[in-house]
């Protein structure tokens, strides 16, 4: 478990270093994720070893957003006079984006003659 966690940290570090040295427009952890995925495809044994740790960790992904979320609540006072237009834009665009993305996925699959994966 400690080793698995070290692996995630290590890939994040490599990602950060690459992001800086190659001045990529992507965050270090995202680059680290792409590299780790590549390693797992080459070495499935490592994937099997870290599967459980990763799944447990990701099932509580929500927790990790709480500190930043509290920061936002503190900041709301400062934007209260433009709150309504901003909230309208955020709700509207998020609903439209999810709907448009999911419908596109569905109809592109249908055009290609691929059946939906129906949930068990």
């Amino acid at each position: 478990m400690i080793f698995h966690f070290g692996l995630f940290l290590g890939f994040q570090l490599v990602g950060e270093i690459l992001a800086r040295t190659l001045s990529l427009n992507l965050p270090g952890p995202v680059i680290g994720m792409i590299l780790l995925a590549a390693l797992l495809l080459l070495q499935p044994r490592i994937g099997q070893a870290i599967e459980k740790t990763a799944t447990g960790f990701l099932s509580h992904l929500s927790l990790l957003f709480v500190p930043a979320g509290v920061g936002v609540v503190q900041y709301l006072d400062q934007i209260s006079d433009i709150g309504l237009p901003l909230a309208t834009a955020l709700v509207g665009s998020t609903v439209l984006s999810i709907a448009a993305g999911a419908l596109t996925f569905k109809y592109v699959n249908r055009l290609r003659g691929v059946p939906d994966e129906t949930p068990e």
Partner: protein
Amino acid sequence: MNEILNIWSYLSEGPLLWLTVTFFAYLIGLGCFNLSGNKPVVNPVLISMVLLSALLELTDTSYATFFEGAQFVHFMLGPATVALAVPLWQNWQRVKAAAVPMLAALVVGGTVSMASAVAIGYACGLRGELLLSLVPKAATSPVAIGVSEAIGGLPTLTVALVLITGVIGAVVTTPLLNALRIRDYRGRGFATGVAAHGIGTARAFQVHGTAGAFAGIGMVLNAILTALVAPLFVHLFF
């Protein structure tokens, strides 16, 4: 009484107190979520955010003091993002098979997100840097900050917009997609990750492992799309 004050002043100096409180606030949020029968409106992030903010207000604690403890939780976002490689690897065959609909959904979902945020914001009277701050709001926050800076938005405002977008996405996605009768967890998750980044992904993992895996991919791909397309988009429309 004096003794209590002493303990309080001791604890409020170190990170332990607020770190522990953050965990318990999340456990309460999670408890409410479970009690509600996993209703998406009872979002654990939202509940913990509100609880903790109220507590900071009541105890007259600054966000800086709180964050000294909570930063250890916040820091884990990095390794958690790296860990998304695991579901990506587990679902690799299905990801490859669904590459075409995913890319189409990415381009449509990502573009609709940017364009409709700006259009609705403009219609509601927002102008200038406020409007620009909205453009990268669907991307994961480190990317959104960089993009907001680059296109002339307000990075601090963008961080807030990104997080609020995530919470909105996490709350609306299940009822919205049910109403649209979209049942495939790949498409459901993917669209949620594109529109609502990590918080949407966290929600997708609560629903189904497949939805979570595809949401993680949607989040990463939209981070890339936003970094590439947002400056172009702004160049065209501003």
